[in-house]
């Protein structure tokens, strides 16, 4: 998958959820990825450069990583 595009998508989700407050937004972003992203998309974002992610998206991806352990 095009990782740059996935990073853009994750950041866009995070920016739109950010107004709900950091903690809620992180959980909501992680849940959004769980609910709507195909496994290869999730796998690719887990491998991506976390530095390129919005702080909320970064924490969400970290949460997502714990799912798959």
């Amino acid at each position: 998958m095009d990782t740059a595009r996935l990073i853009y998508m994750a950041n866009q989700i995070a920016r739109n959820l950010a107004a709900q407050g950091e903690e809620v937004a992180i959980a909501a972003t992680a849940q959004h990825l769980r609910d709507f992203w195909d496994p290869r998309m999730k796998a690719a974002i887990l491998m991506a450069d976390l530095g390129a992610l919005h702080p909320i998206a970064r924490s969400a991806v970290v949460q997502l990583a714990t799912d798959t352990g």
Partner: protein
Amino acid sequence: MGYERPADFGTPAVQSDQSVTLTIDGRTVTVPTGTSVMRAAAECGGSIPSLCATDSVKAFGSCRMCLVEIDGRRGTPASCTTPVEPGMAVHTQTPLLQKLRKGLMELYISDHPLDCLTCSANNDCELQDTAAEVGLRDVRYGYTGANHLGLTTDSSNPYFDFDPSKCIACSRCVRACDEVQGTLALTISGRGFESKVSAGQSDDDFLSSECVSCGACVQACPTATLQEKEVKEIGKPERAVVTTCAYCGVGCTFRAELRGEQLVRMVPWKDGKANRGHSCVKGRFAWGYANHQDRILEPMIRDSIEQPWRIVSWDEALAYTAGKLKAIKAEHGPRALGGITSSRCTNEETFLVQKLVRSGFGSNNVDTCARVCHSPTGYGLKTTFGTSAGTQDFDSVMDADVIVVIGANPTDAHPVFASRMKRRLRQGAKLIVIDPRRIDLVRSPHIKAAHHLPLQPGTNVAVLTALAHVIVTEGLADEAFIRERCDWDEYQDWARFVSDERHSPEVLAAVTRVPAAELRAAARLYATGGNGAIYYGLGVTEHSQGSSTVMAIANLAMVTGNIGRRGVGVNPLRGQNNVQGACDMGSFPHELPGYRHISDTATRSLFEQDWGVPLDPEPGLRIPNMLDAALDGSFRAIYIQGEDILQSDPNTHHVAAGLKAMELVIVHDLFLNETASYAHVFLPGSTFLEKDGTFTNAERRIQLVRKVMEPANGKADWEITQELARAMGLAWAYTHPSEIMDEIARLTPSFAGVTFDKLDHEGSLQWPVNAAHPDGSPIMHVDGFARGPDGKGRGKFVVTDYIPTDERTGPRFPLLLTTGRILSQYNVGAQTRRTGNTVWHDEDLLEIHPTDAENRGIKSGDWVRLASRTGETTLRADVTDRVAPGVVYTTFHHPATQANVVTTEFSDWATNCPEYKVTAVQVAPSNGPTEWQESYASWSEKSRRITTSAAE
């Protein structure tokens, strides 16, 4: 059924709690108070002769043919304009009445051609019938006096003729245009003997006039004056079948009238609850594509897209396709396969395609065109209200006091519903339009929007938040409703957010360009003007904040208490005939039918047990993700039913690259569409006239589609999908679509009570149809929001922050392009381009404001180059102030233009619905087609070659 003229009660039905009992020719009849004597007579089986009365328009009382005698009353009143009274004794057939009627008829016939035997309305003419009823035997006046015979027929409209020499000046056509359609194009010009029907100014014919060719006048005409050309050519129909239109999401029902297998005309069905006897130019007239010469009737295959197509048998096509699918699955795994269901096909066909993908391909890579239109509606309304659908039926608009239209152009895209809305507006409801363009509704005959907020494209969330700001800070919120029906804590969080000064209309005007005073006035009107109903379209959803906008709309409805009763609500105007149904049927990669997430074990196991296969618990790829995955080699085969993603989806170059990267592209369609240029298998589809099934319209109304004729390609689409499934080894054995609906009902709680028999009996049903709502649900969220385990939860306020799109104008691309559709063409135009509708729109035009045009030296009709960061195309300019300075607009109906070469891949944050409505562009004068357009034209021609020789 055989052919008989639909019953006509003469005057419209009246709604009343009280009733009146009277006698008519000795028969006792009870009718609602306010009913006309004419209608009462028709309801008890009587027939009063009439010419100017028909039940689609108000009584007019001009022909004097319907005179009656009433005991205790002097004279002979017209029954159409006389309301019933208790105890009235009416006589409809007396010697006096017979004499009067015969005398009137003589006058009519003295100025009417006596060519009944060769007339196209022979035996289907109300004038002829009335002459028979009154016993006309001779005409004492003779035929030599001044008359209107021999006038020239106006044949300018592609579908109907106007022959003024047969006109009896009953004005039914004029009133139908006024009352039913609401265009007010027709008029009676002149007075007395000079009275004649005119389509506008004296030099206008029907084509050049304001006429929108809805055909209401043709339907209302009692003679052959306004009649379909097809009737003239073919003759009177001999049988009729009631079915559902396959164009837009209004879902009009029609009586298809035929001779044998030949369709003669489509007549809107008066009992249709979506259209109430009305139609538009597409549904009534634009069905010629069904038997167009371009239609492909045999399966075709090819190993590579460079080769010409090879016609093969169904067996060979299905074996080839199944073999390839199985091989790809074996080598690359099930997640390398996917499909796209069609929002034009039936619920049953859509259900089968997603079932094939999930249970046969073994992946959840299934998506549908709602991805590019209303997927944000699904997400937004599910989050806030608990269901992914509109809250009202169409009838509800007649109880609305304030109508808000956001990012929708109903008179072009949902014309039949627009006529209902306009009727309500003429009755006095107030209108607020939020749209960058001055759409027709803003100002049209007898209609003027109270407020038009011409916002900058891409600022919907800012405008809606500013509206909420005014409502909350000015104390207009309906706190009683919110406390009772919504989560109070969530409301308070939201109210705090919107009340912030940075969300005031004055501050946000800098980005929205909407004058703050106008916005405040609109907010006050919506909050305090009585029943407020919001109608919205793709101008809401097709943005990078589409889902946020839908939620912001839901917030507005909740904060003002405008939900859960007639006349209010949140109403997405869905695009395609069955896009609501396609979504209901589990066409999204994360959801099983009935909007239940694939990861929900209980739901998944229900389907696993029924289908006898394990299902993948992980969500699949959405259309844009499929194209991305194709480019990295992890997605390799796609089955596309009735969808032209190359033309309809954004960034054509990217779509083409994705399709080209796939090993197997299966296109199942009526025509070799643009996507088929990249396909390896073509399975010929059937039209809506050729199959049984159901469509679900924008008001959740499930309606039967009935087979009118045999499929020209030999098979209905559901049969083709079933045969492909069987070729892949699945043991499907449906013998009729009703069995597929039984399976849907068995597995989907909101459809639990739906069967074909019940639909046939009731005419239609609005889901949910279940134990709690056995007769369906015209209005939703009445006692509670459809959230939580009991479906009676609380509405959820969601904070929606305005985040500008990343698509920005700049020095190189200073204008904003927004796209849409027009009345006569439909979507990618595959159907309407193959009909007479091209007379109104044979190319896409670029609307540009006079200031922007002048700065660039562009005049109307000039070729211009339209370029974005993604691509460029050329088309001709239409200089108009309908668009604001800085904004340009075009349609996407024609492949020669390919507006989507220009659109970008920015998309809604929650659903990836493309941002069609905002693209930064530059416009410059041009000499003709771009290099890309020329190469595409030659590629498109080459890729459609069909070899006539036998297989090598």
